[in-house]
């Protein structure tokens, strides 16, 4: 089938935005660049997280995968196993994928809110185990010192722009593939999907593991970029909920959603941090409540007419566009 602009609009917009972002080091200074790196770390993780959402599995613990990737890199460097950043990052992604596969076995027997609570519980267990295991750094964490840190920040910037673009294209390929069709069918109605021959559990397991691997790769990147990992900066609930808020604010299961949501949520968080030191995450909670009440499809879902815009008092506002 020839490449069609209309069918691939969101992919094209996302790549164009990333291209423009990629030019910023030419015109701006390092603070903006480090802020963009932080935003893109979340955008990339949310692109990975979307793979879970297209199969209808709402996870409350994506940070577990970020942690798996970051800790793999940290341990490889710390124990001197390998200093090759590309190899280590790929290993980080691989370990996160395996974690997804192993945890997916028991978790994917659950659906809906039970699955969500299960992921939350397991992610917290992983955080607590690491926190109380000295050989894994415990509460002190692990310093990741390599030659890369001596490089200019630009290299990290271009790397994360590249990773985000690659994830967007990868997600697009999955969305348009047979696997994507099967996952969408599973999300809409798992019984009907099974009755048409879709092997729901293996497909969900594959989607969950792939999603974990992508988030894990970003975790590996973060370990190198930050130079220090400890349970609270890669495994915390706060990270999981930031990813979740970005996904739903931007528009779940869309390509453009993570980038719009990423900018909005991370910037809101940064601004709020200046005013409410400890409880700044209340901003995320308010954003999530507004999204669920007013535009359940997020910004992109509402703008494309795939989901309704709702006046919480009067009900649907764009009844016609939403096809209701």
């Amino acid at each position, binding site marked *: 089938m020839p490449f069609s602009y209309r069918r691939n609009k969101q992919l094209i917009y996302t790549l164009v935005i990333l291209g423009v972002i990629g030019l910023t080091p030419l015109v701006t200074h390092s603070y903006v660049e480090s802020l963009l790196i932080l935003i893109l770390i979340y955008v990339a993780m949310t692109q990975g997280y979307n793979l879970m959402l297209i199969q209808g599995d709402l996870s409350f613990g994506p940070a577990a995968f970020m942690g798996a990737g970051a800790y793999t890199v940290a341990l490889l460097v710390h124990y001197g196993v390998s200093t090759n950043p590309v190899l280590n990052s790929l290993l980080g992604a691989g370990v996160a994928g395996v974690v997804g596969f192993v945890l997916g076995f028991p978790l994917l027997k659950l659906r809906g809110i039970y699955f969500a609570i299960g992921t939350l519980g397991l992610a917290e267990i992983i955080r607590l185990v690491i926190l109380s295991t000295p050989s894994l750094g415990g509460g002190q964490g692990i310093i990741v010192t390599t030659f890369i840190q001596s490089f200019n920040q630009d290299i990290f910037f271009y790397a994360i722009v590249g990773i985000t673009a690659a994830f967007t294209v990868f997600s697009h390929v999955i969305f348009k593939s047979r696997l994507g*069709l099967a996952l969408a069918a599973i999300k809409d109605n798992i*019984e009907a999907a*099974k009755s048409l*021959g879709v092997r729901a559990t293996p497909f969900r397991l594959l989607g969950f593991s792939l999603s974990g691997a992508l988030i894990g790769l970003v975790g590996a990147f973060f370990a190198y970029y930050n130079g220090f990992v400890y349970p609270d900066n890669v495994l915390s609930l706060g990270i999981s909920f930031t990813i979740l808020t970005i996904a739903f604010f931007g528009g779940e299961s869309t390509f453009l959603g993570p980038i719009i949501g990423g900018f909005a949520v991370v910037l809101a968080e940064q601004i709020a941090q200046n005013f409410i030191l400890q409880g700044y995450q209340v901003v995320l909670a308010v954003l999530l409540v507004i999204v669920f009440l007013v535009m359940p499809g997020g910004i992109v879902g509402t703008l494309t007419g795939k989901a309704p815009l709702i006046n919480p008092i009067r009900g649907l506002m764009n009844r016609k566009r939403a096809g*209701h």
Partner: protein
Amino acid sequence: MLEVQSVTLRFGGLTALNGVSLNVKHHEIVGLIGTNGSGKSTMFNLITGFYKPQSGKILFNDTEITGKSPEKICKMGIGRTFQIMKPFGSLTVFQNVLVGSYFGKKREDHEKSFRDHCLEMLRLTNLYEKRNKLVRDLTFADQKRLELARALSARPSLLLLDEVMAGLNATETLQYVDMIKDLRQKGLTVLIIEHVMKAIMLLTDRIYVLNSGQLIAQGTPEEIANDANVIQSYLGTDQFARS
């Protein structure tokens, strides 16, 4: 082709099906009727692997399928529709059908491509013109047609239809009856649950009647229409009809 041998299924203290046997031969259209809650849809769920019976056996083309997963049973050639429609709401009509075409029974080398097969199923069910619409934009009757198109897309040799004509008007019902007759012409075998008696009488070669999980009668449509047991438990008495 399909042989259900004395299956029993209990949900806790409730016996949904009690030692029920039935069989369907190649190219037959067989009806399964009964009051609400008599176990008809439960029987479909057993045959298609969504439930596992406590006792009894189910054979399809002489192979035992009792307790196999719904996916495996679909790939063996049993397709079904659901009483409460279960469309893939976020997908287009064409994509709904494509799921069955891709993942259903394996395509033989001489058969049409996945996409051509889907388009043929959509033409057969008069949905071709609406193939790019989202399912939620379809009328009720079209959604019922889509249930059939989707079940057919998985290339079944035995098709289980669960109240596909419920809620359709007289014209739509007759169109649906013609569609099912066409399917038999194309070599399909059909087991159908239906409350629209006119359709059942027009379509079926044989009928099984369930009541409270028990098989109370079986025979040709004429025999069933005149069976005292069936009249009393399902079709209603003359006296009731007159009141």
